[in-house]
């Protein structure tokens, strides 16, 4: 009798201790994340436009209605989707290809593997500034290079063409993030035992067959993690767009994140900006819920429901 009670007492104390130890983290997260989110939710239901400061008070769903009626919201949604799908798929495909290349034997392999991460390591500010200069229509190096090669006869303002600007923004994002996927997939490739591939070759498999039937399934965990992380990062994109195009030209690169920013700090309409924020959070939550149905993701990030 006595032994049972003391054991469960100790177990309970351990449980309490665990939560106590996590308290600092949880408190910090609560005040700097949860609280603002709640506040944001409240603001999204009020009229809070600094341009019309006399209009205050509860506004019900009118902010949300205004957002759904706003064509720039749908534009931003479309652009965000193009941006995310475009950049993530390119990152995964190119990154995997690069990983395969880096997995080969060649001189200078160590150096290549180390230096390839540099774009990813650079602060986003540096990436944004560097590329905006390279692509500059007045003094950009890209123009200079193409001119010297005789491919163009006058400087082209690359970022001034709406659809091309979106393509370029995706390109810069891919340039920056692809190395991470490459290194991730490289780690996955290196964990494949050579014997498996060798015995497949002996059995007569071509290199394509080996790749699609053995290699890819074995690196699936890494692929899943890479896909997840890159998708999250793509949705959060703000810095690059702020520095490269500021959402332009003609809102062609205005992703949802940037629209939220310009609605609040450009138009000073905090109410609708808050509503948009919430919609973005809702979209991401749906994405997260979908992700959670995948067993690979649950296992990779140790989430509820994993075996």
């Amino acid at each position, binding site marked *: 009798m006595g032994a049972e009670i003391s054991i469960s007492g100790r177990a309970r104390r351990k449980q309490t201790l665990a939560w106590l130890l996590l308290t600092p983290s949880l408190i910090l*997260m609560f005040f700097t994340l949860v609280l603002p989110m709640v506040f944001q939710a409240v603001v999204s239901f009020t009229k809070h436009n600094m341009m019309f400061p006399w209009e205050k008070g509860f506004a019900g769903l009118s902010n949300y209605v205004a957002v759904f009626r706003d064509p720039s919201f749908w534009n931003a949604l479309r652009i965000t989707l193009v941006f995310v799908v475009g950049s993530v798929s390119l990152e995964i495909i190119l990154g995997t290809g690069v990983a395969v290349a880096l997995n080969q034997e060649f001189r200078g392999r160590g150096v290549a593997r180390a230096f390839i991460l540099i774009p990813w390591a650079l602060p986003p500010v540096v990436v944004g500034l560097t590329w905006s200069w390279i692509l500059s229509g007045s003094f950009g190096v890209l123009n200079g290079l193409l001119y010297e090669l005789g491919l163009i006869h006058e400087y082209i303002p690359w970022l001034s063409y709406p659809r091309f600007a979106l393509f370029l923004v995706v390109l810069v994002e891919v340039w920056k993030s692809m190395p*991470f996927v490459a290194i991730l997939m490289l780690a996955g490739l290196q964990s494949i035992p050579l014997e498996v591939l060798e015995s497949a070759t002996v059995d007569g498999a071509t290199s394509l067959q080996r790749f699609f039937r053995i290699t890819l399934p074995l690196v699936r965990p890494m692929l899943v993690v890479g896909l997840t992380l890159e998708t999250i990062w793509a949705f959060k994109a703000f810095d690059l767009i702020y520095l490269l195009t500021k959402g332009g030209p003609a809102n062609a690169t205005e992703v949802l994140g940037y629209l939220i920013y310009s609605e609040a700090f450009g138009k000073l309409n905090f109410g609708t900006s808050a509503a948009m924020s919430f919609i973005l959070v809702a979209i*991401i939550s749906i994405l997260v819920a979908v992700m959670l149905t995948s067993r690979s993701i649950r296992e990779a990030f140790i989430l509820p429901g994993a075996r």
Partner: protein
Amino acid sequence: MRKIGTYAIILCLMVFTLSPFAWLLVASVSPQSELLTDSPRWIPEKLTLENYRALFTGSGVAKGDLAMEKSETAIGVKNFLLALKNSIITALYVMLLTLAATATGSYALSRIKFRGYRFCYLFFFIIRMFPAISVVIPLFLIMSSLGLINTKLGLALSYVPFTITLALPVLKGYFDTIPTELDEAAEIDGCTPLKMIWHILIPLSAPAFLAAGIFTFTASWNEFLFALILTSTYSSKTIPIALAEFNDMYVRNFTLTAAGAVVSAMIPVIFTLLFQKFIVSGLTSGSVKS
């Protein structure tokens, strides 16, 4: 034949990946007189350190290009070193808060199979997904009322939730590799858990703390959005903001801004080159077997 193909691919790859950064380096040691030419050269006539000297002495900027010199709060060359200091101090605050919170939190997640631990992971996973833009405006209002705007501590506090999600998997993963026999021996000797963490676990986990510290420092160093919104004075603006303002201020003087960019890129690049191994395992929560 195959070898040539491989080398060709690797060469193209390296050129594509590194040439923008290489150009940045070259631009930073180009003379400012290059501004006046319309055709940029990528190998300048002469190399010079005048841009770096301007950054570190606060003077020596080419004339005729000071679009915002009169601005009261923009960071110009005079205040670049101040921005550097702000970035370092903010990053150190972030490191301190994050490592302290995650040391105890990781111990709990690693050592104690408590009920709801998977929900903790879920919570942290969701935090990681969070778009900063959704939080920054109400955060601004809250910090404003607490008087934490334009302070390095306020900025640091805003980074902490995200850096905690970076540091926790690293520390927890490493703690997992430390045998629990050590815990039991300490308990028999009468050690409280906190003492055990401080005297035994932490010294043994130095590599993990190093990795977590580097992630945290780098995340804070690189961060742009929160710094943009939560700071507006010299005494708190960090390097990323300073660089963006440089670009507006010294519009065509990209050699000067390039030097600033190189300075600010140095720390993250060096850390990444040195600690590559940790990066993959840390960001994949150390759970995918390698």
